């Protein structure tokens, strides 16, 4: 099977989810190639080789400078017109979901989305897709080629294998309507510490925190654990914390090794964004909070007492 992995990058770095997808594709056997689109991105191509790509197709074009989806659809159509791939894989993001869906319409090629795993069974690619709040897992397939797959963010962990990739430049042919939308401004929120997609440890807070001032408590715990701070939708809507930290149905999907949920009831909208975390620890004063149904360790109690104490203990333990 010949795979093409779409590489997303931001501020001169390949996204962790893209690298994870390369590693996953490599583990399925077959040829793994990647496509990198942008302006002045040539240097990033080599990085993809370390995670399993044998060849990276690069279009370095000023028209691909801004992260807009439609010119990228043109670029992929150009490449797929010349090269036959069995499957094109995308790690979900605001940008890549738009690209994958438009490419499906452009090529009349099937797109399976929100996948949490890929497998090759009897020589056929199969996608695993949770449905109905993840209470059912569907095996999904394709009846056309290339098979387009959009993988839930935070699904695959990158594994450095130490190979190297051949760089193959190509030139995209653009459509007028694809270049009609223009980026007027881009503003990036400065986040402290690691971003929640990249963090091994996340301390997340919900409305149970009581107010924005109490975020100090979770920030201290996150710092002690070497992790990032996340928030629920209710907290973001209330303006207590930035949207870039939101986990859940309308925010990000994360799967850190450890997820500490503080004052989070854990409704389904939040659960879908974090349930594939390695270990879930929940602290909530309401013994009936849904999060206790799926937390590995649930503690019913007052977060204002438990969190600072835990922070102290973790600090002491790390210093020892």
């Amino acid at each position: 099977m010949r795979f093409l992995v779409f590489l997303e990058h931001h501020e001169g770095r390949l996204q962790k989810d893209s690298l994870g997808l390369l590693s996953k594709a490599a583990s399925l056997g077959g040829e793994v190639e990647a496509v990198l689109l942008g302006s002045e991105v040539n240097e990033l191509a080599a990085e993809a080789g370390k995670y399993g790509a044998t060849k990276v197709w690069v279009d370095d074009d000023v028209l691909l400078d801004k992260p807009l989806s439609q010119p990228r659809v043109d670029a992929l159509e150009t490449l797929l017109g010349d090269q036959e791939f069995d499957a094109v894989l995308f790690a979900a993001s605001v940008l890549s979901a738009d690209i994958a869906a438009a490419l499906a319409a452009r090529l009349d090629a099937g797109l399976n989305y929100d996948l949490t795993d890929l497998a090759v069974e009897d020589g056929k690619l199969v996608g695993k897709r949770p449905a109905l709040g993840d209470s059912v897992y569907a095996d999904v397939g394709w009846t056309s080629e290339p098979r387009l797959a959009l993988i839930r963010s935070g699904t695959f962990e990158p594994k450095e294998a130490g190979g190297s990739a051949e760089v193959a430049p190509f030139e995209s042919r653009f459509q007028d309507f694809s270049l009609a939308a223009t980026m007027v401004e881009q503003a990036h929120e400065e986040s402290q510490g690691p971003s929640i997609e990249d963090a091994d440890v996340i301390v997340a807070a919900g409305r149970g925190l009581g107010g924005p001032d109490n975020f100090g408590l979770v920030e201290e715990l996150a710092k002690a654990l070497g992790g990032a701070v996340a928030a629920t939708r209710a907290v973001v809507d209330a303006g207590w914390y930035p949207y870039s930290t939101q986990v859940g149905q309308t925010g990000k999907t994360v799967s850190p090794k450890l997820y500490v949920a503080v004052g989070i009831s854990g409704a389904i909208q939040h659960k879908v964004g974090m349930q594939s975390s390695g270990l879930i620890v929940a602290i909530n004063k309401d013994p009936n909070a849904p999060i206790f149904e799926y937390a590995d360790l649930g503690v019913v109690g007052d977060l204002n007492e438990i969190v600072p104490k835990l922070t102290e203990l973790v600090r002491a333990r790390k210093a020892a």
Partner: protein
Amino acid sequence: MKIAVCAKYVPESTAARRIDPETKRLDRSGEGALNPFDVNAVEEALRLKEAGGDGEVVIVSLGPERALEAMRRALAMGADRIVLVADEAAAGSDLVATSRVLAAALERESPDLVLFGQQANDADGAVLWAAVAERLQRPLISQVAELSLEDAKVRGKRQTEYGYDVIDAPLPAVVAVSDAINEPRYPSLKGIMGAKKKPQETVSLADLGVGAEEAGEAGSRTTVEALNDPPPRGDTVKLEDDGSAAEKILEFLQERKAL
């Protein structure tokens, strides 16, 4: 200024949801409603129309005949009419087929602006608008939290993983709004009374010039092969804080090598 809002008929959020093991499709036999995320798109369309002074807001939907009743909520809010594509042959359409049918219905209306809500509450796709914009060959702005209209262009401010983008697109354009964009109004009693009298058109695939083989399962390019139980999670432990919870959490993290 003509604005089309793509709206979906979804099962009531309170209804127990199941997948039909025969068809492997979501069982849609129960009560339905206008997808709550689409209500934000309707509200935004009404605000743009009101700000512009004149214009028309058309609801375009693909669904069963009985979706019409749920779609009337948009009319009660102030939308002008409904075009519902209701055709047995369109049931079970995937992204490729759905976008084809919706685009055909939209071509027939040729609106200046097409609005989508952020997602449907019965599927986690959130990808339809990009496929529709592609088929209409129009510029797209998605995930928009602030929208403005001036001269012949729209400006959208949107949330991304990294902060926000401001994107301009000339009309005609396709915009998907996030549910942070507005607080939808409640229909007034007068609005509800008047809704039934507004034009509500049901069209078939043939009316749109879409062949039956281009819609539904025949027009789809993806399949559901099997339904399985979710992978099991390990045991869960729940304890009440007796003053030693912090110590117990630390022990647990050490045991599980999470530190």
